[in-house]
């Protein structure tokens, strides 16, 4: 008995070591599978506060660049708006058409402005923390965009903060299409360079060329159709040779994110339940 006690006293730290390592690994694996782990991320209350303060300080120094970017984007949109107005006025001679266009554009999605308070680029899986949470109506699986393009998808939410899966994350997979035709593929990030992502599963017979614009397809109800994603930078074949693999220069500059918009489709819940029940019935 005394020997046993001595043994435990002498080598007890082994047990403590194993216990702590097991706890670490439980955390590591739990985070990837369960949605309930907000407390262990930067979207919990205390960390959110600290990051909010630090983001305020650093965003002050980025105001200049952000401003120029916004002005430029504003100008582009103004020109586009003018053009569309002209086309619309040529085509519609009656008020009814105008009303339909006006009602269908802005009512399907609600928009929540938010500030990005934490962001990373250099890990294999990057996350973004935002300063809006369930209290402001943010729910998991809403889309995050900024003035230049799409940013990510909300993953976890606490009361006042939320955590989004960045585009720069191995788990991110977004349905995208070409702006000038409807061929689509899936956008994935393969690590290392924060400026480029890859568009997979683009069919062999798709028509496109280098420099073509890629936008969201709107199939998933996370993002509305037609949001800017990036441009085709180089063209290659996929590993199995059945489709194209396109390198996309992303429109969003992830190295200087500051303000963002959280987008939610009004009918998102309905589409989601419909798709899930369809999946379940086909499995049976």
């Amino acid at each position: 008995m005394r020997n046993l006690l001595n043994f435990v006293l002498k080598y007890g730290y082994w047990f403590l070591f194993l216990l702590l390592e097991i706890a670490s690994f439980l955390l590591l694996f739990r985070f990837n599978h369960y949605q309930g782990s907000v407390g262990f991320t930067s979207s919990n209350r205390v960390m959110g506060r600290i990051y909010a303060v630090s983001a305020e300080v650093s965003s002050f120094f980025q105001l200049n660049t952000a401003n120029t970017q916004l002005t430029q984007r504003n100008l582009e949109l103004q020109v586009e708006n003018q053009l569309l107005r002209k086309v619309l006025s040529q085509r519609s001679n009656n008020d009814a058409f105008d009303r339909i266009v006006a009602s269908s554009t802005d009512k399907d999605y609600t928009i929540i402005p938010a500030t990005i308070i934490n962001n990373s680029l250099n890990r294999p899986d990057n996350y973004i923390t935002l300063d809006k949470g369930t209290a402001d109506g943010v729910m998991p699986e809403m889309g995050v965009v900024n003035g230049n393009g799409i940013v990510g998808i909300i993953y976890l939410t606490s009361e006042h903060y939320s955590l989004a899966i960045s585009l720069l994350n191995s788990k991110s997979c977004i349905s995208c299409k070409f702006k000038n035709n409807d061929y689509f593929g899936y956008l994935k990030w393969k690590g290392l360079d924060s400026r480029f992502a890859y568009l997979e599963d683009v069919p062999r017979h798709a028509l496109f060329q280098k420099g073509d614009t890629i936008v969201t397809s709107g199939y998933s109800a996370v993002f509305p159709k037609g949001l800017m994603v990036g441009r085709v930078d180089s063209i290659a074949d996929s590993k199995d040779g059945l489709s194209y693999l396109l390198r996309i220069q992303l429109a969003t500059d992830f190295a200087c994110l500051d303000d963002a918009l959280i987008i939610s489709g009004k009918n998102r819940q309905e589409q989601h339940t419909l798709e899930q029940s369809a999946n379940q019935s086909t499995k049976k």
Partner: protein
Amino acid sequence: MLITFLRRLGWFVLLVLVQALILNNISFFGYATPVLYVYLILAFDANMSRYSLLLWGFALGLAVDIFSNTPGVNAAATTLLAFMRPSLLRLFTPRDSAEDFSPGILSMGTSPFIRYLTFCLLFHQTALVLLLTFSLVQPHVIVLRIVSSVLLTGLCILGIEQIRK
């Protein structure tokens, strides 16, 4: 006793905040990130009990994890470092040194300290990078990450040592 604890706690908070708010945003050439917070574990007194070393290591790693959205990764790596530290310290300490000292350039001498530092950082970074990437698909990227981060972190810690001297 209490004063020692409070001083350690002060260092703990300072290192975690510096790591989370400044160093985590640094990424030289997309590979090297300085991981300064391990300095706390490396600089603990030589005769500190293994139990408190392990607990400090776990808490430190977990705090950094919570800030950087990588639950368990830093905690596992830092607990491993805290577990290895007494053996590594004994390996690199000069024979005639005092019973109780805080590892550093002053107490150990430059070259033994650098050797101790390098080995500790290598263990920690290897565990960290392997857990973060969780695959061996791109071995050259992994090796490059480990080596460059060890170098950068080592330089930072030597810099602090010079200032404290």
